[in-house]
């Protein structure tokens, strides 16, 4: 599958995927995103649910067994990791273009 079609990631999607490098449930993702973005990105609950739903459909994340029956726990998939790497490559190139221009 051509993973490039998922790029560029939205800020929400990017931070949700990054938060799920380790298994976590929904609310933990919200806290993790705030931490990773140094408080700059706060994902609202409805947006997060939608993002998780989309990521599940596209097999970027999967749900894992957990002791907490009420809260679903998610973790990134191999495909999700690949997409993050592609995104890093894309951003690296953008940064290079900007720096080459002397900005």
């Amino acid at each position, binding site marked *: 599958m051509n993973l490039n079609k998922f790029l560029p990631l939205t800020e*929400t999607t990017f931070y949700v995927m990054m938060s799920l490098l380790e298994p976590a449930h929904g609310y933990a993702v919200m806290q993790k995103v705030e931490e990773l973005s140094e408080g700059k990105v706060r*994902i*609202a609950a*409805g*947006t*997060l649910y939608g993002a998780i739903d989309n990521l599940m459909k596209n097999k970027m994340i999967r749900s894992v067994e957990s002791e907490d029956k009420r809260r679903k726990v998610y973790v990134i998939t191999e495909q999700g990791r690949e997409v993050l790497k592609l995104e890093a490559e894309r951003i690296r190139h953008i940064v290079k273009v900007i720096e080459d221009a002397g900005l």
Partner: protein
Amino acid sequence: MDEEEKYLNQMAKQGLMFKKYTEFGIYHFEKNKPEDLHYRVDYRTFKNKNEFDSYVVLLDDAGWNLVYGNYHSGIQYFLPKNKNISDELFSDVESKAERYKRFNIKCMTSLCLLAVYLVVVIITDKFHFSEIGLFWKLFLIEVPLILLRTVPVIILFVMAIIYGCCAYRAKKLYKESLNKKQSL
């Protein structure tokens, strides 16, 4: 959508707390002391009760109380646990636009179902008439029956128009909110 939230907030200011929504646009309120509340509405459908539960738990963790909604209601109402907070359910343009899209789909589905129903009623009506050759003789008996059949049809017809308008507006809002993003 946004108007619906505003409407519920205004009712709460008058001391009418929203409790429940049933089909055909009927809102149930409960009298209480007036309050400044910030209702939020979402339009989601769920594959099963499990999905719905994990959705409610996530929102609950994030500080939202479910006021009304279940896994087959297609509409969910929330209030923030901290009443002074007027947070949004959505934090980016895409997800907000997605909500309009879901609402549009909800309206279109209802519209299609109504259309199918109307067609079925009209077809069976025609059969009805042709079977009764002595229409005028039975006129007096028939009139109340026809009324009984047509009144719901008219109501449904009006509802179909309302659904159509809602769907159209939702689509417009969806496009507008996406355009707003492009112009940034």
